[in-house]
């Protein structure tokens, strides 16, 4: 069964050209890696191959048929695709119900369904996950289950979008092993910007650059990721946000137990921890979105006695999903509204704002809808909104992941400037991915939130 694209061109409505006149025929076995920067169109290409998107012009064909017209139940048995966001891959309360739904769609006889589910669960060691409520599972656990479901379809073509992204080290190794054994009789096509996972077993490398698909030879520099803490907190610090004996849990599972900490002002901290350890939940706790026990205070005032509206003016949060940040209809309005709410209106003059708009290269989209600009632009606008508001405490939930190097460097300048304005900043970042230096490192490990001393390694990286 062949998978090929002919003269494929694709543009999202109201956006510039993304892919132009691409023709390619995928090999029937082996591993193909599609690389490219964020926003280059590699995920889009995968979605076109999977028949989820239809080309603006040209064809994507499986078995010489238009792939988007093949009945899904038949298609997925030959060509299966796993999207990046596996949170929404699950539409039922448990993994078992989800597996059953998939097997019913494939018209598996009902008496065989429990047997097949049992087999999939056993082969993938999912015993502890399959009956848990989906809402209580971490991104990594969901990824594991979704991968097991997709692999169980045993298709000729397997399309995976950043399959390693949420997995911890052990499961990354398992997946590498799985891909190596599968690729002998299956065509595996992955889209990823982290190429090192595929270093020793990829069969072909493709790159999406300037609307085209080209093969290339990747170069792997031997620069190990920073994993050691390079700084510790000085003895005396000024602090406004503090918590005592803070405890919170999810579905009966304790995430953080009895943590006491004073968040330093004028510093940038890293909040680290494995997937599902409760990093995002901590930020939700600190912004009145999640129940806890213990005490949280700002300037000695108890959080429980302050209205949400007042509290949120002291402590702002950069959401993981940038679109959640926007409350206006254009980028310009967003920035103006932030300026009106700014803690440092004398600093954030119109001139200052427009100079940052220029630096971030946002001037061309300043009058656009914030919902219809690229993901990278959304993150920059989001960061700029929070910087302009410049509240005393700023919490950022992975909002820098996926930005290119130049933008990350600019983001760092912006954040340094905020510390000079007196802000205390806490950032969730994957393994020092965005910034190489933080003033201090907090890690959630085994339900404990601890301040790591200088020279210590992060537990989230297993060696």
């Amino acid at each position, binding site marked *: 069964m062949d998978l090929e694209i002919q003269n494929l061109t694709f543009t999202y409505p109201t956006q510039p050209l993304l892919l132009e006149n691409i023709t390619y025929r995928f090999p029937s076995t082996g591993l193909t890696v599609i690389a490219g920067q964020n926003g280059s169109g590699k995920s889009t290409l995968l979605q076109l191959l999977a028949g989820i998107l239809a080309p603006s012009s040209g064809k994507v064909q*499986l078995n010489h048929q238009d792939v988007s017209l093949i009945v899904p139940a038949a298609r997925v048995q030959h060509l299966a695709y796993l999207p990046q966001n596996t949170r929404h891959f699950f539409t039922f309360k448990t993994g078992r119900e989800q597996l059953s739904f998939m097997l019913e769609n494939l018209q598996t006889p009902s008496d065989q369904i429990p047997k097949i589910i049992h087999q999939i669960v056993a082969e993938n060691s999912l015993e502890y996950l399959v009956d848990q409520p989906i809402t209580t599972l971490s991104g990594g656990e969901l990824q594991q289950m979704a991968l097991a479901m997709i692999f169980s379809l045993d298709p000729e073509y397997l399309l995976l979008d950043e399959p390693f992204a949420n997995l911890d080290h052990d499961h990354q190794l398992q997946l590498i092993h799985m891909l190596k054994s599968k690729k002998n009789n299956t065509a595996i096509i992955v889209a990823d910007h982290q190429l090192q996972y595929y270093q020793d077993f990829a069969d072909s490398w493709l790159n999406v650059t300037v609307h085209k698909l080209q093969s290339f030879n990747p170069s792997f520099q031997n620069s190990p990721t920073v994993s050691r803490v390079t700084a510790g907190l000085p003895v005396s610090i000024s602090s406004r946000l503090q918590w005592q004996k803070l405890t919170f849990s999810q579905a009966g599972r304790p995430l953080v137990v009895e943590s006491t900490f004073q968040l330093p002002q004028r510093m940038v901290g890293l909040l680290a921890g494995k997937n599902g350890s409760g990093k995002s939940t901590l930020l939700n706790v600190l912004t009145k979105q999640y129940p806890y026990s213990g005490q949280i205070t700002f300037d000695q005032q108890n959080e429980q006695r302050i209205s949400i509206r007042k509290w949120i003016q002291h402590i702002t949060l950069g959401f993981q999903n940038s679109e959640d940040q926007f409350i206006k*209809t254009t980028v310009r309005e967003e920035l103006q509204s932030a300026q009106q709410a700014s803690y440092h209106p004398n600093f954030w003059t119109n001139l200052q704002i427009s100079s940052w708009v220029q630096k971030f290269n946002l001037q061309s989209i300043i009058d656009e*809808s914030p919902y*219809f600009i690229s993901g990278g632009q959304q993150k920059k606008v989001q960061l700029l909104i929070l910087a302009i508001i410049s509240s005393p405490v700023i919490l950022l939930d992975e909002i820098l992941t996926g930005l290119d190097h130049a933008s990350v460097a600019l983001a760092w300048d912006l954040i340094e400037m905020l510390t000079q304005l007196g802000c205390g900043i806490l950032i969730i970042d994957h393994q020092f991915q965005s910034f190489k230096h933080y003033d201090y490192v907090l890690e959630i490990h085994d339900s404990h939130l601890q301040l790591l001393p200088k020279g210590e390694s992060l537990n989230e990286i297993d060696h």
Partner: protein
Amino acid sequence: MQLPTVNPHKQHWTIHDVILLSLIAIFFGLIYQGWNYVYYLLAATPLKPYANDLTLGVWLMAGPVSALLLKKRNACLIGELLAAILEMFIFSSWGVATIISGIIQGLGSECGFALTGYHHFDNGELFLSTITATLITFGWDLFQNGYLYYPLHMLITLLLLRFISIGLFAGLMVAAIKKLLIKTKVVAA
């Protein structure tokens, strides 16, 4: 071997449409929970019919919003019916009256769009749908809630209040939402 194919031109309700309208119904239901308590307090007094008609428009928003998003025949009716089913199961209020009123309200708003043959889903049609919704739901309440037995001057007041409420929420408010949707390009003009 040829794989089975779907008919791309078949116009029907997709899983996407159903999830979208159901999600909107749940969101709206949760937003109105606070509103619900206000109504609840008023509903225990003789002013209940006035409270009922003044707040009715809020419950009718899901229908026209569904129509504007999907621009499909029956979107209003199905959006409102889905909202009623979910209201009954999740928020467990009003019993069977929820479903029956949901259908009547959906039909009422749908008529406005149907009268113009579903050619446009613009402000004119929206206005028309507030009128049809007011008349049809009022006609139904003559029986279901015994409005038939209220004095005439009270009926006129109630009808007026109902039209104001529906016009305000299922009309002007929906038009304002539509304007924002178009300005942010979430919905094509």
